[in-house]
């Protein structure tokens, strides 16, 4: 396996220079070109046909997301690693959808970076630890599978007490909340389940075996 030819895109001149200095003496890697925005990156890709691209996300003129999408479409064999300061899942997701094979933060160590480059060039995917954690912990906005699952622990507890016929005030005393908060919980439950009143709530609790 010969030398891996790399293109770097970043709108920070100093960063590109630093990157080139860092990779200069690494055997098996060669930086063949650079670009300060997404559009230039695409042009440079046409010229150099590298095996691998290291790109930032936010850049002027055209950002890394769009450039990645374009490069991935035209040259699916070119691997793209995102090298950025941002680990917000919104950007991670967008970059993955656009076709990136790796996502690492700019604080990465030299050895780790070289390892990731080789790994991705060999066809594997790589996401740094922080990035993976951020993705995994991301909660879905869509409601959970069953309607009962959309309720919180507290709401299930209160629903059971409503179904047992307790008043708001009685529930409040039992769960150490104020009646106002209990009423808010009840409203939330009704809203989540799309129900209208206590009778329907009671029926739901019974049907879903929530009467503990």
């Amino acid at each position, binding site marked *: 396996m010969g030398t891996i030819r790399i293109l770097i895109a970043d709108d920070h001149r100093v960063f590109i*220079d630093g990157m080139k200095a860092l990779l200069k003496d690494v055997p098996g890697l060669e930086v063949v070109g650079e670009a300060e925005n997404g559009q230039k990156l695409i042009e440079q890709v046409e010229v150099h046909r590298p095996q691998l691209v290291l790109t930032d996300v936010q850049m002027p003129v055209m950002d890394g997301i769009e450039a990645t999408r374009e490069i991935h479409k035209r040259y699916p064999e070119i691997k793209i690693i995102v090298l950025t300061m941002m680990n917000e899942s919104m950007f991670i997701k967008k970059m993955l959808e656009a076709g990136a094979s790796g996502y690492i933060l700019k604080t990465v160590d030299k050895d780790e970076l070289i390892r990731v480059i080789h790994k991705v060039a060999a066809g594997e995917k790589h996401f740094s630890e922080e990035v993976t954690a951020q993705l995994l912990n991301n909660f879905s906005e869509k409601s959970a599978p069953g309607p009962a699952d959309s309720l919180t622990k507290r709401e299930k507890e209160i629903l059971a007490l409503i179904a047992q016929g307790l008043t708001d005030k009685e529930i409040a005393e039992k769960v150490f909340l104020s009646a106002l908060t209990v009423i808010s919980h009840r409203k939330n439950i009704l*809203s989540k389940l799309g129900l209208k009143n206590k009778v329907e709530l009671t029926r739901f609790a019974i049907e879903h075996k929530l009467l503990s």
Partner: protein
Amino acid sequence: MINRQANRRTGKTFLFLLTLFCFPAFAQKAKIDSLRNVLKTQKEDTNKVNTLVLLTRAVMLTGQYDSAMIWGEQTKALAEKIGYKKGLGNAYNNIGNIYLSKGELDESQKQHSKSMEVQQEINNLPGVASSHNNLGNICLYKGNYPEALDHYLSAKKIYEQIKTGKMIRTNLASAYNNIGSVYLLQNNYAAADSNYRSGLALRLELGDKHGAAASYGNIGLVNYMLHKYDEALKNHRASLKIKEEIEDKPGIAATYGNIGTVYFDQGKYAEALVNFFASEKLGLELGNQETVANAYSNIGQTYVRLHKPAEARAYLEKSLAIGKELGHVQILKNSYDGLARADSALGNWQAALEEQKLFTFYRDSILNQENTQKITQAQMNYEFQKKQTAAQEAQAKKDAVRSVITWSGIGALVLLFLAVLLFINRSKLKQKHRHQEELNKKQKEQADAVMETQEQERKRIAEDLHDSLGHLLSTVKMNLQTFPSEYKPLTENPLNLLNQASEEIRNITFNLMPRTLEEGGLVPALNELASKVTNAGRVKVLLHVHGMDRFTLEKQSQFNIYRIVQEAVNNILKHADASEITIQLIGQDDHLRIMIEDDGKGFDPGQQKSGRGLKNIVTRSLWLKGNINIDSHPGRGTTITTEIPV
């Protein structure tokens, strides 16, 4: 630095900085009548235009800007119709001045630029110079010092070319004065001093007493800033002498104040007192509230230094009253500062504490304003210089330019970093007072503006931090890693520190303004927040969103809701010792319910005074017109619910 602080405390009076023309209003009425009579008899020719020019000016000086504007437009129309360029230039000039009087700087600038164009076209050099002077004034008001300086220098150059004529030389002296003032504002005291002195020499030669008095005063001010107190006193005294000759009473009052301030800074409190009293007496005679209030607060401050707190208190109460009446922040700040010192000397700890707080509040609001101005000015300076550099050094070698940019980049970074620290520090204190402010309905609008500005500032700082410092740090890290491996024991520790610094910047940036909030909106941003906190490992955050797709929230509302949740979560992390946080956003009919629950140690709402975090939540909730309910029991967690109309 210490002396500067003292200046602020004594309420330094910055007078006579600018030489602007001013005529007594009472003389105008008769003039207007006679001009209108002349007008009736005139045909549509250049004479009529000239009369209209004079009439517009006279009406403007009475403060009736709307009528003045009508006359100004008439002048312009007639001058255009008969093709009288000089008249047209004067018409633009008048209209520009009317806008300036109304405080509409941008429009004024446009008109004066047009005036300059016309004057250049007909090569009317005095007219061009006068336009430069006007444009310089506008730039100065806008705080754009470099451009103001450029205009004043152009005016000076033209006047120097023409050389002869009393009017020209008078204007040249003004140009020197204005140039001096810009340098003073830029803290370039040496240049300010030399320009003021050139202006002074000319004015003395011309026998212009008003002008000379102003110049002496300005030189006094510059030397005061340089801590050259003897020189300052000498010039203030010279200024005083002329002002007494020409019976310029407001000027005399100001000079007494300035002399007192110099003595105060020298620690000569008895002498300071004499002068402050003289200033007070004249201020009262003239009915000038601001002068009187400044004198009172200065007298109070001096008594504090003389260990006479009771006397100090009496005067400071008086300056405070006027400060409140005038809504004069500087006077309020100085008064509270003195009162806090006086009350603390008198053993009124409670009062002193309150006054200290209010002093801090006003000082911060002034500082905040100054910081914003400083940053804007730094930007303007930078942009102006960039323009200049580009023009002058177009052919200069690339490398030279690059090093300039690098250094100014590093300078900007340091500035930014300082600005961030200042901003964070200030905003902490500022938030303390947000609650009271909000309850006061009159200040609601202000609060709106503050909130929006704060969000914008946060965003800007976050972006700058991320873009500049963040990248710089990672670049430094890369550079360190290019060292051969035998240096590893040396580079290891810095590398670790750099990692921590980067992490810290990411956290600060995220706290200041998560990009997801800007670009993706409320729910994705809350997701991000929940995820970040959960990843940190101590507390698990659950987010439930329901029915949010039935309405769209305004951006400012989204930001406020995000900040409520953020504040609540931060509070929990800081105080609650919880293991789980549940955040819910439930949209129902025409309102949105936000609920933040934790299973931490709770508190007794009746017992505990609510901290800053809770106050902020309440304030923001009020801003959203929400009903807020904070429910907590010791040992039973806390539930915060707010229901806002949408």
